């Protein structure tokens, strides 16, 4: 088991290295580097941030400082499907928080617990997705779903659940 984990970590560090190479170890490109690394891991593990800091010859505090500044970067793993409920002005006046409550209920999550136990779903809000014409809106990974009601939002999630269930079999 331990051995397996080591192999996995080593392989992943290789990817971090590739990203750093691609950006020529340029510390000015810290934000895009972190973006690519997070795409790989779905979050930013501490040891990876240390690794990046050493490679760019900057203090780890600087890397963590930058990463913690931007809301896109997270330090806990996220689910396979990240649901972003848009809470922009237009969505808000059209009841986006009702969607949020409905999905919290559907997924058994709370304000403190945003990722499901099975690591399938993470539920969060986002300030504006810019699809205001279709308010209220949510985004599941890169797919935008518009003109939602609580029931429609639940359906979207249930469909994914069914699909995931089938894949397992």
């Amino acid at each position, binding site marked *: 088991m331990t051995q397996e984990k080591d192999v996995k970590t080593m392989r992943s560090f290789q990817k971090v290295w590739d990203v750093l190479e691609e950006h020529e170890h*340029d*510390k*000015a*490109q*810290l*934000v*895009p580097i*972190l*973006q690519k690394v997070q795409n790989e891991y779905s979050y930013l593990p501490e040891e990876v941030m240390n690794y990046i800091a050493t490679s760019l010859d900057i203090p780890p505090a600087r890397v963590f*400082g*930058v990463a913690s*500044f*931007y*809301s*896109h*970067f997270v330090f806990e793993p996220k689910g396979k499907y990240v649901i972003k409920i848009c*809470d*922009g*002005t*237009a969505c*808000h*006046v*059209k009841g986006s928080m009702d969607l949020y409550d409905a999905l919290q209920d559907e997924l058994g999550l709370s304000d403190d617990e945003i990722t499901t136990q099975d690591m399938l779903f993470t539920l969060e809000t*986002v*300030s*504006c*997705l*810019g*699809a*205001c*014409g*279709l*308010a209220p*809106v949510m985004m599941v990974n*890169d*797919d*935008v*779903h*518009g*003109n939602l009601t609580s029931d429609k939002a639940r359906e979207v999630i249930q469909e994914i659940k069914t699909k995931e269930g089938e894949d397992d079999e």
Partner: protein
Amino acid sequence: MNNTMNTLQDIKQNFKQGLDNYGRRIIVCAGTGCVSSGSLDIHKKLQKKIEENGYEVDLKLRKEGVETDSEVEENDNVILSKSGCQGFCQMGPLVEIQPEGYLYTRVEVDDVDKIIERTIKNDEPVEELLFTSRADGEKYKGRDEIPFYELQSRSVLKKCGSIDPEDIREYISLNGYEAAEQAYTKMSPKEVCEVVEEANLRGRGGGGFPAGVKWNLTRKEEGDKKYVICNGDEGDPGAFMDRSVLEGTPHSVIEGMMIAARAIGADEGYIYVRMEYPLAVKRVRKAVEDAREMGLLGENIFGTEHSFDINIMEGAGAFVCGEETALMNSVEGKRGMPEPKPPYPAQQGLFGKPTNINNVETLATVPMIIEQGAEKYKEIGTEDSPGTKTFALTGHVVNTGLIEVPLGTTLREIIFDIGGGVTDAKGNIDNDNFKAVQIGGPSGGCLTRKHLDIPVDFDSLIEAGAMVGSGGLVVMNQDTCMIQVAKFFMKFTQEESCGKCVLCREGTKQMLNLLNKITEGKADQNTLTKLEKLGQAVKKGSLCGLGKTAPNPVLSTMDLFEEEYRAHVEDNTCPVNECDALSVPEIDPEECKGCTICAKECPVDAIEGEPQEVHRIIAEDCINCGTCIEACKFNAIS
């Protein structure tokens, strides 16, 4: 590359002639709005079905130049393309049919057979897919007739929604990159600045600072290296103009940047796009690559000694990065915090070099100004705010979507004519239900009925206590609680404050606390005084635009809806019943059995009714304690 101009002309001619080889063109809207309503599936099925029916279909223009093939005369070939946002997001997915100009709205995958049978085979419109006005029930054939489009003045958005944003040749076929060519080969940097200054193009990102003046300042700075930045960090909730422009006509933005680079003498540029806009990022990346491949970006552009290339940087989710100094810190790989000005970016910008930074829409307007000249440009709009402005029209309005109108158009025209009127809680058209329109996002303010006839331009709006901002227009009906609206924006700015200035960091938090007190019925007269005082202090004590304008939504609603604030504070009621803590419970007459338990339990005797009959809560006496809700065995009270 000495003959770029010839190349441009060749491409233009070939593309135009190439289009003639097709008897019909079908344009499926592939803006974020329509894609999320399933337009890509429609595109796929159209392709499949048209082929099955024996027509030749191309997704990209394949037959360039003139074809002498005999087939052409029969004109059975179809070109099926995707466009950027056509603006009418509410009615999506949209499918436009050329040459007739039919605009099909709310198209579903199952409608594809009808479109092929009736329109492709028999040249007839599919009546049921044409836009039907909700106001008068009338059907409209296409964009030229639909009031939503007819009343607009689309120039920046003209190409957006009609061309294929992923085909550089089509942009070139509509005189694309000719303005850049002119700026590089026939004009001096000073002349370019002068034209833009003369046109009085004011920054579309919110502030309204004249772009030409900014360019001239940067041009005059000495420096071996200068930068041009396109600010596409459109973070205002309720705004999506920049996203649409980047998705629908990315080459206009690139061309605008090239002209700006020529004007100030820059050889490198950055486009900063929000990562929440994946489609915009993808299209801009492709556009930059295509332009590079064609020699429009890179070294010795248009055969001159000048070079210019563009990098793309995705934001990482920080609203404050829309502020120019914060954005530049972010590009440099730092925390995106604003810096004091001066020094201005024109003097010391990105990596300490003179930098010019403009908003997406501003840059997309530039090629048009160079092409037609300052005088022609100034023909529309007002004297101090010439040209057009795009707005994202959303909220409780019939036609939501992306619009473009001359500056100086009144709110009445925008909301009631283009927007088709206000909708009530049930979604029916009811213009008397109009309460307010929020303009300018978290930096702006609310305007009410009395402001409906003021012209929408940079200066008039500031006078009225709002601002153009980036251009989000959120219409609100009578069922909206204005304190909740103020709270919504305060929560937003509080979360997005970068924390550098104490008054912004702590002040917005305390303002939010005070607003929470109001909506929870825990406020007193002091709360309102404190809120106002604190608002003024935050404005004064903040470095950047975020903090300076953060109190605006609160202060403007306090000013315009004083009574509503008073009702919350003094009478403990929310006039529109939106604040849960203040709304009086109601008894459902269908469920009430008249058991009298609630009346007995009520500590203040605020419930009346005879046994066996429906009971009633006396709103004036009720203290919202919730006892009755718990006491009722039939769940009749909520």
